[in-house]
């Protein structure tokens, strides 16, 4: 046990990053869960990473805005494709997402065979580390999240086909670079899963509480026990989700009660 990592200037930016990610992912997570397409975030993140590799293949510089544009364009293209398959073959959406995921992952490997320098960026994009986040980096992420939230609010939380996929793609492209793909998945699915017995505002408040409690306790425990922060937060998110099941008002209904 150690207390030296328990320092607000170390954990502060990470916590703010967590709040920014949760802001968009909690409401999106509810939709992902009700649509039954929980692995879509992994597929979109992988497509964004492949976009970055392809951009470098075409000579776009490694750093700066070009990489971000490439990631966003690829993610939006992937989202458009998935919005189309969703309309055309709604029952087949989950297998399509899985197939797209492995195609993007291995497509990246094939491109990398001739451009290995992209490999480090592929890793950067998929395993963003929450502790490396700086406040300067959080400003654009916060702005994009605010815009996405405003659009969701204007639409009354109901997002149809293409709009849902486009917003989702942009939110994932931002968050994966901040906190990595494991935390993105956990932030999206775990709070929504824990509060699936609720509806409306109550669900949102409960899901945000689970998310924030998970990030906060994960950061503190990772400092105290000197463990990697991202992995720790995934586990505390799950623990908080289990704990709220002890509150009768929040418990997910058993199948028989439905």
């Amino acid at each position: 046990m150690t207390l030296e990592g328990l320092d607000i200037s170390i954990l502060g930016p990470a916590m703010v990053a967590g709040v920014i990610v949760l802001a968009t992912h909690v409401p999106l997570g509810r939709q992902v869960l009700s649509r039954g397409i929980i692995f879509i975030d992994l597929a979109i993140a992988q497509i964004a990473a492949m976009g970055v590799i392809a951009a470098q293949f075409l000579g776009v510089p490694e750093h700066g805005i070009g990489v971000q544009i490439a990631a966003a364009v690829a993610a939006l293209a992937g989202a458009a494709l998935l919005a189309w398959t969703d309309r055309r073959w709604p029952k087949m959406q989950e297998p399509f997402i899985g197939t797209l995921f492995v195609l993007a992952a291995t497509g990246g490997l094939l491109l990398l065979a001739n451009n290995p320098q992209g490999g480090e960026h592929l890793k950067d994009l998929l395993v963003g580390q929450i502790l490396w986040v700086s406040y300067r980096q959080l400003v654009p992420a916060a702005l994009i999240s605010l815009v996405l939230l405003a659009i969701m609010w204007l639409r009354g939380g109901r997002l149809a086909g293409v709009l849902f996929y486009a917003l989702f793609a942009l939110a994932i492209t931002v968050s994966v670079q901040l906190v990595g793909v494991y935390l993105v998945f956990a932030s999206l699915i775990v709070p929504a899963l824990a509060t699936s017995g609720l509806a409306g505002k109550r669900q949102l408040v409960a899901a945000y509480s689970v998310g924030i409690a998970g990030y906060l306790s994960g950061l503190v425990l990772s400092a105290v026990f000197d463990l990697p922060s991202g992995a720790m937060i995934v586990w505390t998110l799950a623990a908080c989700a289990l704990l709220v099941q002890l509150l009768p008002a929040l418990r997910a209904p058993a199948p028989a009660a439905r």
Partner: protein
Amino acid sequence: MMKKILSALLLGLFALPACAKLQVFACEPEWGSLVQELAGDKVDVSVGTTAMQDVHQIDAKPSLIARVRKANLLVCTGAELEVGWLPQLIQQSGNHAVADGPGYFMAASQITTLEKPSQVDRAAGDVHPEGNPHFQLDPYRVLKIADGLAARLAELDAANAATYQQRLADFTTRWQAAIKRWEARAAPLKGRKVIVHHVSWIYLEQWLGMQEVGALEPKPGVPPTSAHLSSLISTAKEQGVYAIISAAYQDPKPAQWLSERTGVPVVVLPYTVGGDAQSKDLFGLFDSTIDKLLGVAKK
């Protein structure tokens, strides 16, 4: 009076308090061990990585940032080995004393590196433009780095400068004697051909006169193709390769795969301090490396 207080305060900012030890953060175990040799209990050393991990990348833990924050001196390899995480770590620590200047000691700046490309060509793989950074297994380069490091310790902690000088002299004597011993023992390895996993052994090969005839990773950081593997198999069979070298932290599967198809034995070397039970310090690391390389012939 005011002036006196002010200058005392300023002095206090720059000089270390008499009771506080110099805080050293070493990126890799070999440099932690070298600091220990040169400074003993005059400093507190903390090491950021272990021999069992690939130092090209690390998992971010809060304590890493906290340790860099309180460090007076960073001792790292440099030559872009830690480029994936050290810049972020220094930035997050907000510690300007180790961001550059005397508090920022890169071993690579003390020596000349091998394989420094005349031009950085993407097609050549994950190359380091500043040369191959895996130089801790050349004892002569280690000695040069020890010189530079002792001088840096003395610069930052003038009160103990004499101790550092004396410990450097002592280390140099023991190290030079050890080099003679290692070279005599390793004489049978001269001219032996080896295949490596990652290109992290050229300094050892050059020192001991061994010849690298192939690498499992055709380009650093890229998985091999089937054509590359079949050419490796024929190289191994035709050229009478002595051993396939893998590091303790690497996945042994590729080396074993090649060994099964060619009959050439695999030797897993500690690679750095802590890589096996014998490698408790720099001396143990070299003893163990040479023992294991010689042990191949007895198999």
